[in-house]
């Protein structure tokens, strides 16, 4: 095969979205080339640790049997932490909905599926430019080399340098993105199961809010893997940068993660565990605001994080299943377009329609107002303090225990917040969560 020979489709980025597209298109008999900047597919991935299985099964029905699944999430926990006090709610799930794993492993598996279906994956190459001539995408350029294809799928991820060059998106706005930093703590699987009260292959997903972020918007997460625990923090960049400028956030974010690891409420869960890995990644905070003006052009489709397809509900963040689903929709749209005369702008319009009809878009719209909550310091400073103080009145009474409402009103007064304001703010937020 001549290297200058044309491919049917070039996928830029071997992440979940790119791999899903490449797999489905290669399986349908197209000549697919995937270009990845990192060493090996998935090597640039980083996340907390949980993926929703059903959208993935729609692409790979063999997922449950074949994919590198660490633990099926059987427990969801939520904690509000302030000082040495903490309030925790736990929910025990009734079926297998989501699983924990290392994203690098999962994406590696997806890439192998694509390769086995006939896609060609070339790693450690950087795509510098999507080549456009007279409004039509012709291929991609890397250094001095141009490779041609009938269509390009942009799965470049959250940092959309290619789309910026094309003028489809603006530069990233700090208010629309967040920084995730995590540590992987290695621990014997038996100890994980004992300490988190889990059965074999059962996992736990834990969302933490309060002063683990020093009262800044964002939160902490804990996920149990097979023989390790992932812990970390997600901080929206806009408010964190402002807090740093104002001198409120003095430490490096990694020391916040360290303080979280050493927190007295949590630290015994990973006693004797070793930190075997740490890392950081930029993630999407306001998906809908990051969506390109158009998800398609003549010969181009945008999928995954590059399209802003990450849903933040306030208590969960879903990006991998939405990425995979968008990759699947792109593959479907392309196959239809090829059957109808080619990937022209007109024929690829169906991709955007498919996205708008899918759960991705509905979820993004549905949870878009969460941004108002995330940008309001009240929910990360005063509210958790009032809640913890109220709980302390209920549970730390030496003689007389107040009624629930009394503990709340007293707590609000002592924290110098009007209880009406709390009720008003809560009333507003309940509709948004």
């Amino acid at each position, binding site marked *: *095969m001549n*290297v*200058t020979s044309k491919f049917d489709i070039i996928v830029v980025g071997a992440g979940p979205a790119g791999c899903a597209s490449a797999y489905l298109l290669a399986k349908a008999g197209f000549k697919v*080339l995937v*270009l990845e900047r990192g*060493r*090996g597919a998935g090597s640039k991935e980083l996340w907390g640790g949980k993926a929703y299985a059903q959208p993935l099964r729609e692409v790979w029905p063999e997922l449950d049997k074949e994919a590198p699944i660490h633990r099926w999430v059987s427990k969801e926990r939520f904690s509000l932490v302030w000082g040495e006090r903490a309030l925790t709610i736990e929910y025990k799930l009734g079926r297998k909905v989501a699983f924990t794993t290392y994203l690098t492993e999962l994406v590696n598996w997806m890439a192998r599926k694509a390769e086995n279906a006939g896609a*060609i994956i*070339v790693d*450690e*190459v950087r795509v510098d430019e999507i080549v456009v001539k007279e409004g039509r995408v012709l291929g991609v350029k*890397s*250094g*001095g*080399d141009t*490779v041609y294809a009938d269509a390009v799928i942009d799965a470049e991820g959250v940092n959309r340098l290619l789309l910026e060059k094309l003028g489809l998106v603006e530069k990233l706005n700090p208010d629309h993105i967040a920084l995730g930093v995590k540590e992987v703590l290695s621990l014997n699987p038996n100890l994980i199961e004992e300490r988190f009260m889990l059965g074999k292959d059962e996992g736990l997903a834990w969302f933490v809010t309060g002063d683990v972020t020093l009262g800044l918007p964002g939160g902490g997460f804990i996920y149990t893997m097979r023989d390790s625990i992932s812990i970390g923090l997600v901080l929206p960049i806009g408010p964190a940068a402002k807090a740093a400028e104002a001198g409120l956030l003095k430490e490096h974010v990694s020391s916040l993660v360290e303080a979280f690891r050493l927190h007295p409420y949590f630290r015994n869960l990973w006693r004797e565990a070793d930190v*075997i*890995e740490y890392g950081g990644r930029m993630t999407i905070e306001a998906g809908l605001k990051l969506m390109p003006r158009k998800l398609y052009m003549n010969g181009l489709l945008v999928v995954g994080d590059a399209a802003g397809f990450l849903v933040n509900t306030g208590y969960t963040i879903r990006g991998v299943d939405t990425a995979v689903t968008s990759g699947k929709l792109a593959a479907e749209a392309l196959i239809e377009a090829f059957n109808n005369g080619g990937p022209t702008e007109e024929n690829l319009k169906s991709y955007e329609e498919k996205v708008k009809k899918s759960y991705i878009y509905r979820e993004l719209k549905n949870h878009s107002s969460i941004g108002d909550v995330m940008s309001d310091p009240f929910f990360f400073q005063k509210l958790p303090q009032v809640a913890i103080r109220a709980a302390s009145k209920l549970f730390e009474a030496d003689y007389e225990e107040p009624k629930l409402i009394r503990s709340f009103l007293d707590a609000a007064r002592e924290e110098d917040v009007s209880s009406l304001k709390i009720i008003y703010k809560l009333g507003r937020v309940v509709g948004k969560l």
Partner: protein
Amino acid sequence: MRIAVGIKWVPNTQAVRFDPETGTLIRKGIPSIVNPHDLPAIEMALRLRDAVGGEVIAFTMAPPPAVKGLELALGMGVDRAILITDRVFAGADTLATSYVLANAISKVEREYGKVDLVVFGQETIDSSTAHIPGQVASWLDWPYVYYVKDIQVLGDGRIRVVRELEDYIEEYEIELPAVLGIAVRALKPRPVSLYNKLRAKLNKDTIVVWGNSELKLDPRCVGLKGSPTIVAKTIDMPEVPRKKEVYKPRDPRDAARWIVSKIVEDEKLRELLVKKLWGG
């Protein structure tokens, strides 16, 4: 011209951290890279090929993940690559390694034709012995020149080799085949190109894997068994806390005076210097 270029897959020593408790290196999880000093050797081989034609074959003895290093060489434009890998080759010192590599060169000649030149980087960043090129030359009984900066092909089966030392330049005319050690930073290596990576990926024969079932070497002469080298003692060098001072005189002689007076005045620094220079 058929040129073989030897490369080594090494831990990126710049990323290696110290364990503050035990004082040893933490190698776990450190990404490996192609020994940076091998890149000028690859570049030299490619320039020779581009000038006079022929092919460049990259080879390495390493565990299977080193295939990523060979992919880098192919991405730079090397024509084919050989991964020499076998459990019996593990734990080798430079003698056992060079024995395997020299035999691999002989096999290259049997498989693909006469090898005119074998080039290596000057040394590796993880062990810095600089033994391998000379030892391979000894096994093959070929001439060996190191610190090579430039090569000219003379056309009558001979090459002119320029060797740059600290204060003089040497030129040799040697007969091929030969082994050369290319000087550190002799040439700026070219970047990896998409076409080259793609060509390597689309052609299934570009990377071949040879184990001992292919090389058929006496197991007593390879790997740990074939390695007479023992590490007698290792001494950790104490970390010297650095002090930063900036002095910018107009006259460089003032700077020299200033440095000498600093050393003479500082008792600790004086002792350390004496220790380093005369060992005690």
